[in-house]
């Protein structure tokens, strides 16, 4: 899935990250992976083998729409876009994540 530098897997977060990336506007798969890598300052590396199945699964579930369009260098690329449902899910996931990470941080900080 998403691999941290240490190589550990963070379960179930890839889909959330993809939604987050697309929250900024339509992107193709490569751009999604790049954005996650860059924004996380190379901490999170997205495996291609996980990226595309995840994108397609989200599309099947109606959270994303896909459309073929022209890329920056004028090549045909498949662009993914959040649907209304996808936006709702992104918000829900973001809140859940905030609660979860705060809780984990709180637990870890107690001496």
């Amino acid at each position, binding site marked *: 899935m998403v691999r941290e530098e240490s190589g550990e897997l963070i379960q179930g977060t890839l889909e959330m990250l993809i939604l987050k990336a697309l929250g900024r506007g339509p992107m193709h*798969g490569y751009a999604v992976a790049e954005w996650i890598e860059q924004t996380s300052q190379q901490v999170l590396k997205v495996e291609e*083998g996980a990226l*595309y*199945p995840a994108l*397609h699964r989200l599309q099947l579930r*109606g959270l994303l729409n896909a459309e073929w369009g022209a890329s920056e260098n004028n090549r*045909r690329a*498949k662009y993914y876009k959040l649907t209304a449902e996808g936006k709702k899910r992104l918000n829900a996931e973001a809140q859940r994540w905030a609660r979860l990470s705060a809780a984990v941080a709180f637990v870890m900080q107690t001496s």
Partner: protein
Amino acid sequence: MALHQFLLKMWSLFRRRSMRREFAEELEFHQSLLREKLSREGVPEAELDTATSRRFGNGQRWHERLTELWRFQMLENFFRDLGFSSRLLRKSPGFTLVALSTLALGVGANTAVFSLINGLLLRPLPVPHAEQLAVLRIEEGGPEPNYEFCAPLFRGLEDRHEVFADVFAFNSDVLQVKGRSGNENIEGMLVSGQFFRALQTPPLLGRYLTPADDRRGGNPEGFAVVISEHFWEKWFARAPDVVGRKLTIANTPFTVAGVMPKRFIGADPTRNPEIYAPLSADPVIDAPRNHIEDGIHAWWLTVGARLQPGVTLDQANASLATVSLPILHQASSDADWISGEEKGHFHFLAEPGSKGFTFARLLFRKPLEAMFFMCLGILLLACLNLASLLMARGAVRERELATRLAIGASRQRLIQQLLGESLLIAVLGTAAGIAVAPLVSKSLATLLMSGPMGWHLNTSLDVRVFGFAACATVTAALLIGLVPALQATAGDVTEHIKDKQHAGKLNRRGIWPRVLLASEVGLALVLVFGAGLLATSLARLYRSGLGFNSRGLANIAFSMDKQPLEGDALVRLYQSLDDGLRQQPGVRNVSFEFIVPLSGRGWDNEFAASGAQLQRLFLNSVGPEYFATMDIPVFAGREFTWADEKASGGKITLNQSAAKLLFPGESALGRQIVDREKHSYEVVAVVGDAKYRNMRTPAPPEGYIPMQQDEQKKLSLSAVVRTDGPVNALALPARALAARLAPTIPAPVVTSVEDELKDSLSTERMMAVLSSFFAVCALLVTGIGLYGTLSYATARRTSEIGIRMALGAQRGRVMAMIFRENGLVAAIGTTAGTAAALMASKALASFLYGTSPFDPWVLVGSVTVLTVIASGASLLPALRAARIEPMAAIRCE
């Protein structure tokens, strides 16, 4: 969301190829960007390809994963399983045949009986808002609810509209309608004024009957009738100007007011009237009887009602409770009768009437339910049998399944596949069963409802029947499939693979197969015992004798009530008919009777020897030489003759029971007896007892009166004819004779007394025939089950048996060992079955004649038959095992 996914997947089904191209293009695009990035990061040109593919991995694999995502995993697996299962079934045609036919039998029988139940007990009347209908009955303290009303009580209810929108009454009747060749008997119905309004079905043509038609003498223009679409077709060739035309019914003109559409059958689901006539036309139609004038002495009406919108049945009953007594007091001036009814807490009661009302329901509900349970038994048996056979087959595939589990197949997936097989069997078997069900239910309906009542039962398939069949299929598939599937995949994986020899491992395979087989044996015993009881009861019923000889006896019913002759002139007509019939070839004797024995009809009066107490006798009016014709022995005295006229003084012939009742210990011959009205009769003969109303009741005390002395003016009698030839041969001459001597009467109806006898036992016969059929099937199925499972088990132990024999085991010992496998199961099943059978048989008690529900002989017989079948089924595999050649058996592993 699930729908969205489904639609997208459906869409992708149609564009497989372009989808695949798009996957490739998407991945390629990513790869090329990756390559450019790597090149920017300074990877040398020569290493770019390897670096990209190292980073990206195997493109083909990602491709496959995407394709999988877009497929209907479940559905496609399912189709694959189905294909696999059908190949498996084709490979063992014997198993498949047994599986399919037992299931078809179980489902077919169930569906057939269910459609009878549906037609008689469940289907609502085809009228708008049937749920608002109610059926009215009278509670008067008797043991059975009374659904028959007399005219005064109904007329008292008719105008009570506090809770009912409409109150209606009807009575099925046979109408004499004048056709091209004289009068014909047509099935009809007398209906009260609000009948059609209550049933809310618009007429196809013209208008329906209204309260204005239900007046004495009809509406101002005379009597009107409404006819059925079928009758319109048959008599008027669908003439558009039929409304206003005349029909001559009972020699009186009636005007056709309208035509009702085919779907309308009135309020009795077992009737299909061709003509609806107003109730107040009864004095004309049923002449010379007059049910309306007979008042509280004629209980002939069925009463129904439509509730006012929003009124519940409880409210209706509360209102009925308050009006019951006032209506009772208005109905008659007979104080004795009123006080008798008051003592019985007389009141009207409304019950749900959405399904209309038929007396057939009261008669056939219990037998049908009993049969339904028998059918469920056979279906359960078929399922148990299939489950045990599949389990035995599963055991053969044990190692294959274990291997598949070991290399990663999920248990769920394997169960799915095994279920697929049973689902396939279930669907095919059920389809076959449902295909034959309509035929079976139709013939059952004819068998059950044949006879003088002329009931029709619509057994056609409808939503309820299909729903039932679908439930039966799914339940059967689950029952059949789940047990063996769980069993076959339950084992410890390594155990199965290691376990090559299976030697002595039968015990390890658990209790399930034995439980299934034992319950099969038990269930079969219950069915066989039940069938044995019913068949014994029927045989005893037949053997109990009639008191007369039914063989070669014909009944010819003449309807004389609407022709002009009466009294002595009518007697002379009967005399000419007598002469005419005697001249027919093969006819040995002819006489007449008023009550046809075993027809269910009856007539009684009270008689006393001088000074003694009144005794109730059943009566019949009969002609000369009646006892010779019927083969009833005359113990003393003489037959009636044509000379026994009214003027010669009252004469009566008693049967033995009546003679004993009236003159205990004395000779009755020549004595005088008087009836309640003080008419006196001379006893001219004592004859043998004969059954009267039906076969189940022993012959009652009975008196016979000469037909010439019967007080009815236009007596309709049946000729009884003893003939050497076939009974049917009399139909044409009888018709010709009637046409010549009494041209206005409808064609006489010729029936064979043998057939009538069968009809009067239709319920008993159907139950005995069906249950025997089921019992034979149950025995067969159980035999196949025992044989099948044992031979599978034995086949798996071939090498073990070979080794035993090589080590010196006797063939006899081997045989006994195999035989014992089933012996124990059969013994347990029989014991449990006996207990269950004795408990279940109580439910049959009311259908049995002269047979105890615990009849020990029937029980012993059933156990014996089952033991023989079980032994036979177990002996074959045992014999085969004993014939195993040790060397060949060991080598084959």
